[in-house]
């Protein structure tokens, strides 16, 4: 959906925040009071415009997949996701938005946020997780690469700004299946 800019090595006039990783508090979405925080972070950092319906669609249906990161009471990052049947064949998780504000990037906050969501997805029985990221967003691509995502497809001029996207995909191991069986099942 959106090209995450988390950890992007962008030049910014804003100074890097100095803090210890232990000072960051991660909380699960807890209700309507979190919504304005999420909306203002996404609005400020991501290129694609979303209506309030899009936000509500996600946080009301999958509050357990939405996390926020706070530093001394200030919301500095968030992740918004969904999961469900994809084409009636695969139970799939989807990362819709991931944002960490610039002064807090490069400290593993985005990785922690998204890892928490992915873990819930895995425990909920998802077989895979997908998302889209701008091809130019090296930071996000590296982050997801470290988590085991592959670039499954390139989507031509996917964003309103005309930039291509990669569809990234992470498949969880299917432990009870022998690889040969998986091949047969996919037939």
């Amino acid at each position, binding site marked *: 959906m959106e090209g995450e800019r988390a950890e992007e090595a962008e030049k910014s006039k804003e100074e890097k925040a100095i803090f210890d990783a232990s000072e960051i508090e991660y909380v699960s979405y807890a209700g309507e009071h979190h919504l304005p925080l999420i909306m203002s972070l996404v609005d400020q950092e991501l290129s694609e415009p979303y*209506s*309030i319906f899009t936000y509500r669609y996600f946080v*009301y249906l999958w509050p357990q997949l939405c996390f926020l990161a706070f530093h001394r009471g200030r919301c500095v990052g968030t992740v918004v996701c969904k999961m469900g049947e994809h084409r009636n064949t695969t139970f799939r998780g989807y990362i819709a938005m991931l944002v960490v504000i610039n002064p807090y990037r490069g400290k593993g906050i985005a990785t922690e946020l998204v890892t928490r969501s992915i873990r819930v997805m895995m425990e909920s029985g998802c077989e895979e997780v997908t998302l889209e990221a701008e091809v130019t967003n090296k930071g996000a691509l590296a982050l997801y690469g470290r988590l085991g995502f592959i*670039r499954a497809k*390139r989507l*031509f001029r996917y964003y309103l700004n005309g930039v291509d996207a990669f569809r990234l995909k*992470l*498949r969880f191991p299917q432990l009870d299946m022998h690889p040969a069986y998986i091949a047969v099942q996919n037939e």
Partner: protein
Amino acid sequence: MDWNSTLAEQAEPSMSRRSSLPLSSTIPASPNTVWVDATPLLQAACTDLLDGELIHGENFNLFAAMSALEIMDPKMDSGMICKYYSVDEAIEDGVGPVPISFDRTTDVQCTLDIMDHLLACEATWHKGHSLAQTVFSCIYLLRPERTVPSPILHSYCKIIRATCKAIVSVVSDARTHEEEDLFTMAYGLPLDGDGDEKSLSLLNAVEENLCRQLRACKAQSSRRKQDMEPLQSDIDMEEGYCKALLCRLRFRKHFFHVLACMRRPQGKGLELARKHIASSISELECIRKSADFLISTASGGCSIGIEDRTTASGRQPIGFDASLNSRVSAPAPPRSIKMLSWNKAIEYFEKLLRDLDFICSYSLDPSLEVLLRFVTQFQSSRPDLVARSHLQLLLVQEGRLYGRDPMFAVITRAAGLPETTKNHDIQRYESVMQLGQLVINMLKIVCTNTAWQRRKLGKSLQDWRVIYVQLELAFTNKFGEVLAASKDENGVARVVKQILIWLEEQAYWIAFRFLMLGFELELYSPSEFFMVYWYLYAVLVKLAEKTDSRMEITEITAAKRKGKKRKDSSKDVGRETRIPPAVRFLQCQIHLVEGLTLLHAALRNEMAALHSLTPFNSEQEIFLQHFELLQKACIPEQITYHSFKESTSYARFSNIATPNCFQQAQKMAKELRSSFSNDHDRLAELRRLEQVAEHNSVAMNVICQLGAVEPNSLKVSFEFVHHPCYATAVVRRA
């Protein structure tokens, strides 16, 4: 946020249409349904809801949420940004005056600016923005009748509209997918003018008049000068203005002819198209050169940087407003438009014309193999939508290749069957007809943008597999008996057998292209190169094998046919030792990818380099995901993650350098040069292969020698310096 600002405007037009229909009278209640007045419920819901809340129904999915636009939010509401509510309002406000100016010199200057800006708009449109927000941001185009009193501007606008129409038509006919929906959207725009003939005749008349004015101002005798009214009032500038206008008008004329010629059936206009392409390019060059003169006419100098200016003079054009059509554009958030500069627009058209010329230079070779090589070559220059659409329409017309050769004839030729087979009864067999359709689809797919192309090629592999199995089954069950009974050498069995061999070869070609496009699209991360090269190796081995079988059968068939006349079979004897160059070309690449695989494998096994652990899955899942489509289509058969692990686990620095695969590849590439001395493209590819092989051969020796002594002192990375898909190892000291 008040209630009005959060009303959802649904994207589906059916929603708004439905609301105006008297529902209760048209849809009667059935035994299972009943009509209930929902007004009280809605009212109750309204008083209960806070601002921005919505009632969530089962069918309110992500698409619906994303399609909802917030009215009055400038990030979403396209209508918010416009300055005028209608074209008429803009005209009343004096945005597009006619005549542009009562001063004739100014009028000419402004006309030139409009022409230049329109060229920039057109190129921007071709590059993926909407027609409404680019070319048709010009008020003069939106009201065709208004420009009649200014013949030069009028003729230019006419030909622009006709050109846009021709381009929309070629792209929508080709349906190159993914990118064309925005491109061809021309709803509410006055594209339908008086027809091409009138556009051209007016353009010719205006051109002729300008020619006379140019001649008149050049003429020495003042008598002739008086015969002709000059273009504008500044005599010293007359020649420059005439020339600047002429090359712009002539470019439009030739470009329009190019488009028309290329659409002629069966490629019959290609030769003439090339002449117009050459003329278009030379007029573009004149347009470019006119910039010096036009900049000098811009009084007060130009404040816009050369990278941003959309006119040769550097002035802002009169008569444009990009927000005018925001109300007719798609029900989606407004797209930001970065207009191409005038310089970039000229570069775009030069590239487009070169791409079109490349298409026109094609010989319409009946061989599928030659054709696919041609298309691959064409795609390697990254042509844009318009050129690709033209190629696709040339390749497939009315279900025939070039509108000329029936698909079955194309297939039998590709399979190396004799000419007479093209009328064989088997073409009416269902699987064979489906195969024909599959070939058509493939031809269309290879003309699309590479991102879409790769996805479609990958998915099509399963169709190829299904047809293969069906044909094979039919061949053994139904026609097996026919073969036994008649022993007819030209019979069904042999035809099917040869088609099957070719079919497999074709499927492996698709798989090869699928894997190679992954590099161009940057779908593989460096840690995955290893498995991709390994899989590429497996695919190439099969491709070479199938190509060899198909060529061998073709040769035997040809020899037998000759033999019937001449009884000369001595040529058959040498076959076993002589491998055709096309196969050796593949073998050269086999050596190369084998070397790359081994090098990667040894680095992983010895140094734990290029090896990354992921928290949620393992290499096996990554392997399965990358090659899922190939695995589903059994390409190749019996290839699994375990065979990959097994075959790469023994590679060590001590055993990968002998035999040195890169040296073999290099040697082969050198030898093959003489076999392709007339094939420029393959010679170039051989040169690239040779460079990769040579560099990697040296790198491998360094790695193996140093790695054996102090493995941790090495830092190896892979870069695409000589070839877009085959990496070159770069060794550094850590």
